[in-house]
């Protein structure tokens, strides 16, 4: 396993109290696969991605657990040792490419800086590598002399992918890399990522709110809700035979461009505020299948699903397909 996360927790300080943004997460990322980390805003998916990269904001702290990457736990490492991993072994693609790119520096200069200073390449090999990286993401190497503002949104995202890949990382963490893009550009960028992943044998964590993006691009998926992973497995298993009621609800909650016009079914309510959490499953207040035990005990992730009623998944799936199941009480 390339990356194994166990009982991982990240807390934020806030005026209202401690926010348990990531709370007891287990996640495995195998070599050479794209894992979708999917969930709604505030579920902790971006915090988890940033914590794995070691780029959390000052108000956040790692509150427990381990992250074993390429055979060693990287959480106890010093900032200096983390920096040695960052970019070389594990790279990051932010949602907005402008956050990865320096607006006042030509793209070529930025690539060369990374390749020479961090990768230790000489000038000529670094330039050749930069040109090759641009070609790999579908950009014209002649445009290395452009500034980021001369690029469209899609081109900037390609450039930030090229920059992330500069030092041949084993794992790339991409935080909503296509969310800000138009649908055609989104597809083209996803195709670049899939192509690179398969040619270079990279592992990738694709953080997204969009199940359709997961279905299109990912081999595996982990569904996050209120700071915890509620379901994980191959994309086919999770999307076609969901075992957690939240995943079941999500699959009926948004329109399919080739689907019918039958009514969509919202999941009533909202996720909990992650301060002063009550015991029990965090989805229980919105779950049509919740029982007494769900409100008093927190289910762990067992065999890829964190639900006490996972054994009845088939029956629950049938019920979840009926709109009246999700009607507000």
């Amino acid at each position: 396993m390339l990356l194994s996360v166990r009982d991982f927790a990240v807390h934020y300080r806030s005026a209202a109290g401690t926010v348990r943004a990531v709370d007891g997460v287990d996640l495995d990322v195998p070599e050479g696969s794209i894992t979708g980390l999917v969930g709604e805003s505030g579920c902790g998916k971006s915090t988890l991605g940033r914590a794995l990269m070691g780029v959390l904001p000052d108000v956040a702290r790692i509150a427990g657990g381990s992250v074993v990457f390429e055979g060693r736990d990287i959480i106890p490492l010093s900032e200096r040792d983390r920096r040695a991993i960052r970019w070389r072994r594990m790279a990051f693609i932010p949602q907005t490419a402008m956050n990865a790119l320096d607006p006042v520096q030509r793209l070529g200069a930025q690539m060369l800086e990374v390749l020479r200073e961090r990768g230790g390449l000489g000038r000529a090999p670094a330039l050749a590598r930069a040109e090759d990286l641009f070609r790999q993401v579908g950009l014209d190497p002649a445009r290395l002399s452009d500034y980021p503002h001369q690029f469209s949104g899609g081109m900037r995202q390609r450039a930030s992918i090229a920059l992330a890949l500069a030092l041949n990382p084993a794992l790339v963490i991409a935080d909503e890399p296509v969310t800000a893009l138009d649908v055609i550009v989104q597809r083209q960028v996803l195709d670049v990522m899939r192509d690179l992943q398969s040619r270079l044998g990279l592992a990738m964590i694709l953080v997204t709110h969009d199940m359709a993006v997961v279905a299109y691009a990912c081999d595996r998926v982990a569904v996050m809700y209120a700071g915890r992973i509620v379901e994980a497995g191959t994309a086919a298993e999770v999307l076609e035979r969901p075992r957690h009621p939240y995943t079941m609800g999500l699959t009926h909650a948004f329109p399919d461009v080739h689907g019918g016009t039958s009514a969509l079914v919202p999941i009533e309510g909202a996720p909990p505020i992650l301060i002063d959490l009550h015991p029990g499953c965090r989805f229980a207040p919105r779950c049509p299948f919740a029982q007494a035990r769900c409100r008093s005990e927190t289910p762990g992730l067992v065999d890829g699903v964190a639900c006490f009623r996972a054994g009845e998944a088939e029956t629950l799936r049938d019920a979840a397909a009926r709109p009246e199941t999700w009607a507000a009480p």
Partner: protein
Amino acid sequence: MSQVISAQNLGKTFHAHGRTVHAVRDVSLSVAAGEAVGIVGESGCGKTTTARMLLRLEDPTAGRIVFEGEDITHRRGAALLPFRARAQLVFQNPFDALNPRFTIRRALAEPLANFGVPRAEHAGRIEAVMQRVRLTPSASWLDRHPHELSGGQLQRVVLARALIPGPRLIVADEPVSMLDVSVRAGILNLLRAARDELGLAAVYISHDLALIRYVCERTLVMYLGAVVEEGPTVDLIERPHHPYTRALVAAVPVPRIEQDRAPLPIKGALSDAPLVGPGCAFRDRCPAAFGRCAVETPPLRELSGRRKVACHLGDPA
């Protein structure tokens, strides 16, 4: 069906830095009571400018707009006030559409006061609209402030604010794009119900064809300021005629493992310097472009089944 709004040959030209930009060219669109029409396209295609012109938030530089039988194209100031009450925008971002210092009650009373609704009617109108957007019992919501509500709840208030003056037309620009997936369906269902029950005319602006399919019977596809295809939504998505629509439909990911992953039938990227002069604006990205496309701008021509397309392919003429 009576047309609530009818726009003919709308155009918007901006002049900046010595350049003339045709943001919208020759867009015609009519929406009947109880009908929902979608305008779909990528950023910069002119869909939002078109919507803003329909609401007279932006002055058209060409064409005319007839609303409930009256030409409102050149109306200004106070003369537009009755129209403003009857044509409402549903804001995209619920997190900044409401004044954070106003209670929900005040946010809803404000448009009533602006449009001269007698005070005695306010409480009743507020209660009715809260029922319609399912924020009940209303007493438990009306004294709260926006920061006490979730995104989905705020969007219900935004919708209530648009409905409370009693509009005949609502224009929704990406009405759920800022919301979480699990609550989007609730807002879309409310919009559908409001349209059906009140017989509203609705215009939805979105880049998301799946959403448009869910809420709109008829759809216009825009590319670089012009309508390239138009027709009943399901027919248009399942049998697109224009090469751009084909690419747009093919690009939408679907939430299923089995799906088409073939390369998109489109070349290059949207250029920031649109082609000028005659010819099809899509020709440099079109996999099927031929000689005629560079010399003659294809007009939006009628096909059977209420379909229209602006493409020389398959044109007998």
